[in-house]
């Protein structure tokens, strides 16, 4: 996955994490949300009612950027700092896998 929306390029020595199985570069210290932002992925969470949401408050309040991280669902992307090898999955909800009719 390509980072196309960075305001300034990443410094040298990025780490690698995986978003929905695809490798992507990340800078130590940044959040999972900033990586998702940078690759232009905006449909992030599927809530308990099947509704899709993207980042909304950006600061840990609204629970709209919940993604699965290393197999654990409902992690706030905006509140989680990246680690090398981290596996991030979007649109995962443990009780609702289908889009509502």
């Amino acid at each position, binding site marked *: 996955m390509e980072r196309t929306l960075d*305001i300034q390029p990443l410094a040298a020595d990025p780490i690698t994490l995986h978003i929905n199985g695809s490798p992507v570069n990340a800078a130590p210290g940044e959040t999972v949300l900033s990586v998702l932002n940078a690759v232009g992925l905006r449909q992030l969470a599927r809530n308990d009612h099947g509704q899709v949401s993207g980042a909304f408050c950006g600061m840990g309040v*609204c629970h709209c950027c919940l993604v699965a991280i290393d197999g654990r669902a409902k992690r706030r992307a905006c509140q989680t700092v990246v680690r090398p090898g981290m596996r991030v999955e979007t649109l995962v909800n443990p009780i609702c896998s289908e889009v509502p009719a």
Partner: protein
Amino acid sequence: MSMRPVIVGGGSAGMAAAIELANEGVGSVLIDEASRPGGVVFRGPLRGGVDVGYLGARYSKALGKLHADFATCARHIDLRLNSRVVGADNQSLMMLDEQEQLQPVGYEQLVLAAGCHERNVPFPGWTLPGVMLLGGLQLQIKSNVVKPLGRTLIAGTGPLLPLVACQLHAAGAKVTGVFEACAFSRIARETLALMNKPQLFLDGLSMLGYLKLHGIPMHYGWGVVAARGEGELSEVSVAPYDQAWQADLKRVQRESVQTLAVGYGFIPRTQLSQQLGLAHGYSADGYLRAECNAWQQSNVPHIHLAGDMAGIRGGEAAMLTGRIAAVSILHQRGVLNAEQAIERRERYLGQLAGIGRFRSGVERYTARGPAQVELPQADTVICRCEQVTREAIDLALQQGVQDMAGLKMRTRVSMGDCQGRMCVGYCSDRLRAATGRADVGWLRPRFPVDPVPFSAFKHLGTEA
């Protein structure tokens, strides 16, 4: 007093309090949920090697100074990052630490500086990916160093709108326009009040000049009506607002954009101050805030409030109230005598007064119009976590529901993961309008303030 003062929230207020204490040799424990101190205003980029010039010269300087001052005090400050205070009682805080374990943090003196979150204003389409709160988008460019996707439209009210527009443009994003809901004449009427902070006022004027120079239109008396898109945002409808913010639907204009940032002000985070049973009151804007005296003391003298928790006044005021809270603590600990403490407090209060007059002017022109609550349609979701629509709220009000707790039980608003932070503003507005009462109750936050895993209790005792 043997224990170090504990400060909850490492934003402008909390950092200033810690610095003020450290300058007198008093150590503190400073707890913040982020990986870097600074709060949403002064966290700065989370990754290294970023030139923050695009955020403006004055901001870069202030950011640099705050972190430099903080760094010189580092040895006095026990900084607990990535740690979230999720509960509080009269002896200790309950902190979810970096390893996601709960641990109690005892305190004798406390500074609560948890800040605020944004007021969410629902309208048709607000839940589409691509629609964001304005402060959230600002945080994205400031701390995440990432631009929004595609063309961006900014709507709402207040001085943050043109500021974020300038920062976005300077960061290389495309801004199609800024839609300020209040009429220009209302802002002009406040010129005198705004001149209380000449620098801020000038900054405001120069921002407007910047927008003009770069062809970003600033529309006064216009606001958002709806957002649309397949899967994500692709179009926003805006319309002229009258004095009551009733949108003129005959003059709707459609703007093709991929990002919409909406900013209608802020609501203090009172979860902890309420859990501690402190005295609270309502602001003119209808939000609940903790009450404090000129020493920033709550009704419990060893618990202080700093920053926006006690009422929204912004980052500069937050630093001053943080310092005043610290002065009060220094006096309580006998580090400063009464005379020294009062003298120092008066100095800070003097600076705060100018900000206060400036803020009053801003508050008058940004006062929300009562027709704002009419934006959602019957099927517009109000509480996203529990999927509660406007229709359900209308029905509950018709059935005689009179307060927040009743509305919660009848419709399940606020029972989801965000615990009502995103719908409380709308629900409170509707209840106040329906009952004619100023106090319709507020969300009663309990432990935990944020969801915590059961595994976090592993090491916590079960005996009192």
